[in-house]
């Protein structure tokens, strides 16, 4: 990429694989469990986090030299909360329908540990441009896992994808259901997300043994 130096590009690509916020750093698990029962919710959450983390990282990075270290966590929290509320208010005024869809995510974004984690670990020590890339990279890494988990949970749990009945109708017994296939109700409930995330971690670590910690 001509636009980005190799070091900058790795800020985007690393969190997608070997430094993934969910599977490697085990951050943001709470929202990964809570909202991945449907693919659509996963996508909305991924986009919302990307916006807040990208912008928040820049703001924190610009303020990094003046933030008193004793109250930095509170300052970070205020920045996220303000950003999210401002976005929420603007959407309520100009895109009311969209704001209704997003309203349930507002609380989840403010308390998302990836956001606080990246502010703390990256934005406080780096310039705005690199912080922005880091924010985008990490939210992409987060979003990818969310979408994978959401895909499997919605497909196996409800037999739909983005609300479309891709496997046939479970009640009228058409498509795959005609052969006696049943939806797995377990996939709907949050513990199923843990299992899917666990499988992703397993696959990832068996492909790259360097990620496995020594005991």
């Amino acid at each position, binding site marked *: 990429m001509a636009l980005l130096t190799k070091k900058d590009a790795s800020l985007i690509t690393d969190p997608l694989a070997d430094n993934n916020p969910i599977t490697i750093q085990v951050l943001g698990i709470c929202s990964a469990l*809570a*909202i*991945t*029962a*449907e693919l659509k*919710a996963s996508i909305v*959450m991924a986009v919302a986090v990307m916006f807040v983390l990208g912008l928040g990282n820049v703001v924190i990075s610009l303020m990094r*030299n*003046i*933030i*008193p*270290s*004793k*109250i930095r966590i*509170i*300052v970070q929290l*205020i920045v996220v909360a*303000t950003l999210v*509320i*401002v976005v929420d*208010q*603007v959407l*309520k*005024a*100009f895109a*009311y329908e969209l704001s209704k869809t997003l*309203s*349930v*995510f507002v*609380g989840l974004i403010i308390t998302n540990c990836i956001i606080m984690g990246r502010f703390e670990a990256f934005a406080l020590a780096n310039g705005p441009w690199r912080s922005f890339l880091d924010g985008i990279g990490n939210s992409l890494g987060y979003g990818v896992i969310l979408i994978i988990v959401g895909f499997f*949970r*919605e497909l196996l749990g409800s037999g739909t994808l983005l*609300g479309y009945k891709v496997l046939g109708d479970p*009640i009228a017994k058409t498509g795959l259901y005609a052969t006696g296939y049943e939806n797995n*109700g377990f996939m*709907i*409930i949050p513990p199923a997300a843990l299992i899917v995330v666990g499988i992703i971690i397993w696959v990832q670590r068996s492909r790259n043994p360097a990620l496995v910690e020594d005991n």
Partner: protein
Amino acid sequence: MAVNTDKNSYTVIFAAVMVVIVGSILAFMSSSLKDRITENERFEKQQNILYAMGVNDNVDEGSVNFVSTDKVEGEFKSYIKEQLVIEGDKITENDEAYLIDMKKQMALAAKGETAKLPLMIGEKDGKKYYIIPMYGKGLWDAIWGFIALDDKMIVQGVYFDHKGETPGLGANIKQRYFMDDFTGESILKGTEYAGIAVAKGNNDPLNNTKDDNEVDALAGATITGNGVAAMIKESLNLYKDYLQTVSAK
């Protein structure tokens, strides 16, 4: 110039300045956008009320489609014939009854005081719809909605909404496959007032039995479902006397 950011005085000043800045940004945003937001909320209420009485842009199965925002005001005026405020035994007409905040009124009623209860009477194809606002608690936060009844106390349509139920689980109370199940159910059992339960394991996922005062629950959303049932029961309970006069006619 390097500032000593570790000094207590700096920390206090920083915190104070930050609070003032953030406070003013939020206050400015809130006051400058307030009019637009209230307008949007008013349209939404009209859309929800019309939706409950079956005036919507729904096509076959699928998602919820309201009457569009630019048409809603006109449609609301043409379909909603009467708006009543029920205050104990006193019933008055009020064109802005639909804007009454049900949360406050239900809190008043819970304290044993006289609440101002709004009720909208709509008319479509010569049939009367009695539309009642509801308010209750889900798993995380508030849930609310509207229920449209005919004069036999049969549900003609509902609309539910929520503030923060879990996406993919409790949040699905505003999906059509849940709301449509309520249509045709009676809120009476025999002649007694019974409400509608959201039941697990009623062996009726298609909701073919309409006389059991039950609809099929959502998997993984037990508490939200119970909240919906409780909301219907508690809200309609306040209107019991009025509804009796309607069904007795």
